[in-house]
């Protein structure tokens, strides 16, 4: 989980990823960030995130994102 938060911090350092559950709704990460984030995640965790996974439900919080990663591995 820490690894994931490290990655996210690179794109927006001012967010508390442990508690915030509205990363997409509040536009704290935008579409372009997501492209890079996905690349980083794919590399770091050896998973394959595809377009169908790009929904707010998966990206709105670090925790949900981590769940996604776990599902894909």
């Amino acid at each position, binding site marked *: 989980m820490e690894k994931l938060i490290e990655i996210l911090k690179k794109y927006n350092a001012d967010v508390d990823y442990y508690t915030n559950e509205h990363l997409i709704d509040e536009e704290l990460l935008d*579409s*372009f960030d997501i*492209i*890079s984030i*996905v*690349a980083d995640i*794919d590399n770091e965790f050896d998973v394959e995130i*595809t377009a*169908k996974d790009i*929904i707010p439900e998966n990206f709105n919080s670090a925790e949900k994102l981590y769940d996604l990663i776990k599902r894909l591995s």
Partner: protein
Amino acid sequence: MEINSLKFILFVAVVIIAYIITPKKYKWVTLLLSSYIFYWLNSNQLIIFMLITTLSIYLLSLLLGKIDKRLELEIKDKEKEEKKKLKEKAKTKKKLVVLIALIINLGILGVIKYFNFFSGNINTLLNLFNLNIQIPSMQFILPLGISYYTLQGLSYVIDVYRQKIDPDKNLGRVALFLAFFPQIVEGPIGRYKELATKLYEPHKIEFQNIKSGSLLVLWGFFQKMVIADRLAILVDTVFGNYTQYSGLIIICAILFYTFQIYADFAGCINIVRGVAEIFGITLAENFKRPFFSKSVQEFWRRWNITLGTWLKEYVFYSVAFSKWYLHLTTKLKEKLKKHAHLSKTILALCPLFFVWFSNGLWHGASWKYIFYGMYYFVIMSIGMLLEPVFKKTINFLKININSKKYKIWQMLRTFILVNIGMLIFRATNISSAFTILKSMFNFSNFGEILNGKMLSLGLDKGEFTIVIISLIIMLIVDFLQEKNYHVREEIGKRNVLIRWTIYYVGIFSIIIFGIYGKDYNPSSFIYGQF
């Protein structure tokens, strides 16, 4: 049948009555039948294309579902290696199915809408090589709403492919999703998940919805018939003879066109959403006060919203999260390790290019429209690339980005860029757009304007007054909505006298000031020609 016509109102009234008397179980059939009748009245036998699209997406989505189901059975009790192989195989099959859907539907669209564009370009190439073959141009009539329902249908297939939704076994539901008559003319482009079930479920037609929906329809009529069609008179005069005009008149015409296309498109959407609301169905919003945008990116999140969303979901994401692109992403990030911002920007620009190319091309089959898309692409690219420079400048000049003044500057800047975009959109071709842009800076006719040349462009003093007043009304309504003031709700809360006065003023201002009848020429919806 024009949407802004009495015939349409009558049609809707009949459908409403039919819907009320139909038993619950078959209410969706009433909607489907009315939609097909509406389509037939507009496009006659061209309905065959929509039927082909409906069948293709229905069958191909079912096929996708079958492939998935089969895969589930096959991978039971298999080893990891084999599992992976089977998954790969299934994926390839599914990709093929989607490809077929794309070929059929984009193919139909491509031929009907873009044949002359493609053949024209091929002819130019052939000429370059001095070959004497020429592909003849064809006269295709566009089936109603083909640019809209094609996208809507493809979104269904792709969503099934991405397993975001299950394929629908109910052909009627799929057919209604595609054909629903309010949205078929100019959108909004709906998503299956949100829309299909809503359409299919029976709704009770509530009096409150009739009132509220009718008010929205009234507003849409006002925007289209009082504002848009009136502005069109001046715009058409100037653009029809642009070499004769310069300076302020050109600026006025461009400005008027921006408002015209807004009032026209948003007006239609309002009529359509109002009608849907009467049936208890909420269609997606397509406009959110676009002129309050502080950046061009924001503008495209507030203008033709459903198109932007579609392009994001199915072009941007498809490119950005495809395997080859992710490879590219990784490689690029390694090379530009030290320049995070640059790498992020370049990675965003590539899919963005496809988005804007598609946006431009979708609007029309000519290089002018592609140029239109590229115009916005370039602005956004420059904006993104120069972001750190802007940030530094702002810090240096100690500008407060949260101040009202700065926000107004941002809106103004965006508005100007949007107007130039609209100029490209309206001009006959790229070169005339440039000519008009240049003539904008020629103020030699200032004297003429003071002598009232502005009043000789088709709108006299009285008409100009109506223009100004109606634009101010629209501005106020938009401004209130921007501040989260729900105009229709608030009107509903007032007493009978105020409510009825507003209704009567609305209705009669359309009857009296509407641009219709023998003294004016009728004008079809601008976005309806796509």
